[in-house]
């Protein structure tokens, strides 16, 4: 089947959800939409179940931390329609201090570890997740290391300072 073009896809989503979804710019050839945490599961369910869309394949779930934004945590879903050979990216912006979002494990069993990884690195709480534990880091770690406030290494180290190039 042919690829779904962005207008059709966006039109179909707008018809279903009205102004609860927005289109975001700045992605290469991939329709990126934004929605809220209240509608995310409904949007994903619609994408998965609608017979003309069939986004049945959850490619990835991850998060991005923007410490300067008001809503500083973005959870990013990549969903793929194998039938229509089309991908879509969905973003949900959350409060960085209290990031909570419903779990997508109700739709895809494979979301389990992707959400655990996102929790492990960003502290995003996926409500309704069956087993939200750390996955790659040690259990007794007391930070969420991929958040921007945690530096890669100790900034007070002097032995790696390069005074000529300001690093």
């Amino acid at each position, binding site marked *: 089947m042919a690829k779904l073009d962005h207008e059709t896809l966006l039109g179909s989503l707008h018809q279903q959800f009205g102004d609860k979804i927005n289109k975001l710019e700045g992605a290469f050839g991939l329709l990126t939409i934004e929605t809220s945490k209240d509608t995310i599961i409904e949007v994903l369910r619609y994408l998965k179940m609608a017979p003309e869309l069939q986004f049945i394949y959850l490619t990835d779930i991850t998060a991005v931390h923007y410490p300067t934004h008001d809503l500083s945590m973005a959870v990013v879903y990549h969903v793929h329609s194998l039938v229509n050979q089309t991908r879509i990216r969905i973003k949900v912006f959350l409060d960085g201090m209290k990031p909570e979002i419903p779990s997508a494990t109700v739709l895809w069993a494979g979301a389990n570890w992707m959400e655990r990884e996102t929790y492990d690195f960003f502290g995003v709480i996926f409500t309704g997740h069956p087993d939200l534990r750390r996955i790659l880091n040690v259990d007794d770690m007391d930070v969420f290391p991929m958040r921007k406030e945690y530096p*890669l290494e100790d900034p007070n180290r002097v032995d790696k300072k390069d005074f000529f190039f300001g690093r």
Partner: protein
Amino acid sequence: MSELKPKLTANHLIFEDNDPQEELVTLNLGPTHPATHGVFQNVLQIDGERIVSGVSTIGYIHRAFEKIAEHRPYYQITPLTDRLNYCSSPINNMGWHMTVEKLLDIEIPKRVQYMRVIIMELARIADHIICNGILGVDTGAFSGFLYVMQEREFIYEIFEEICGARLTTNIGRIGGFERDFNAIAFDKIKAFVKRYPPILREFEELFNRNRIFIDRTSGVAAVDPETALSYSWSGPLLRATGIDYDVRAHEPYSSYEDFDFDIPVGENGDVYDRYMVRNEEMRQSIRIIAQALEKLENEPKGVFHADVPEFYLPPKEMVYNNMEALIYHFKIVMGEIDPPKKEVYHAVEGANGELGFYLISDGGRSPYRLHFRRPSFINYQMYAPMSSGMLLSDAIINMSSLNVIAGELDA
């Protein structure tokens, strides 16, 4: 600083309520059990030889690549990708280069694309050789492994000829290759294309209709397509269940659309089908390489990178003798290039499935965020649930056919 603190769950027992009266035994499969093919652990509850339930514990070689990548210039991230799936690192390298090229909007010459295809298909063969060879060892047939392992050595010799390294290759640069393939490399590739199919046939003769092998693998760990899709499986595992999803065909990158190849699919999604799919993929890879060699004949000689001086590191002798080259060298190394403030998702068909790179650029010298969609990580999460009810020895075979590479699992 953040107020956000995780709930501490240190060192909990996985099976606390294990009653010795019920005669269930807790078995630690791993982290360094030889059958696990890497450093990861499964805590299994077994009743005799049958697994009742299991929990996977991973992260033993987690190296925080995503965090490190946020502090590295783009060209220094290539060595990090080497260490994801270290059995087929050229695919990771090429995938990363293509992601950055997509971000920077670089047009790559056809010759370079075909050279990349050759490298990626060789890497795929090397990876499948390991997986199927080890599957043979785990079922008790050691000799097949020796037949094909020698061929992997020839592939590594080709890599060595092209880039100087064997395992963690760091092949290529953003914009092309660091140097042209030399005549010896081409000779070795041509020789390999000729000599590998008969060896593969010999390997298959040892296994395909071997009674013991079929008894051990057929019907073991069969997965239906719905479950596989729900767990986001990809690569040979998904294709063994009968779904013909291959990124090379769905979203052709690096001119895969110019090639004529088939996508093998299985029927039952069991270990035997996965083995057969991988074997057939190796044959298709040889077909692709042969076509690529043919196509290279018609391309202008000596083109091995795109003409993008602002992103492609100039050769060292140029840097010493030519002012423009020195300027560009300085700009690239000091991170003065201006990538657009955009985000890219690029997927390549890795040896284990869809290997995706999600790159967000804020215009700086290093990515704002880089996320790897690692097929091993996503394929492996079904291992513990699907092991329940399985015999311990079948679970070992199943693990070896999942081809989980610890480097890719943990990133």
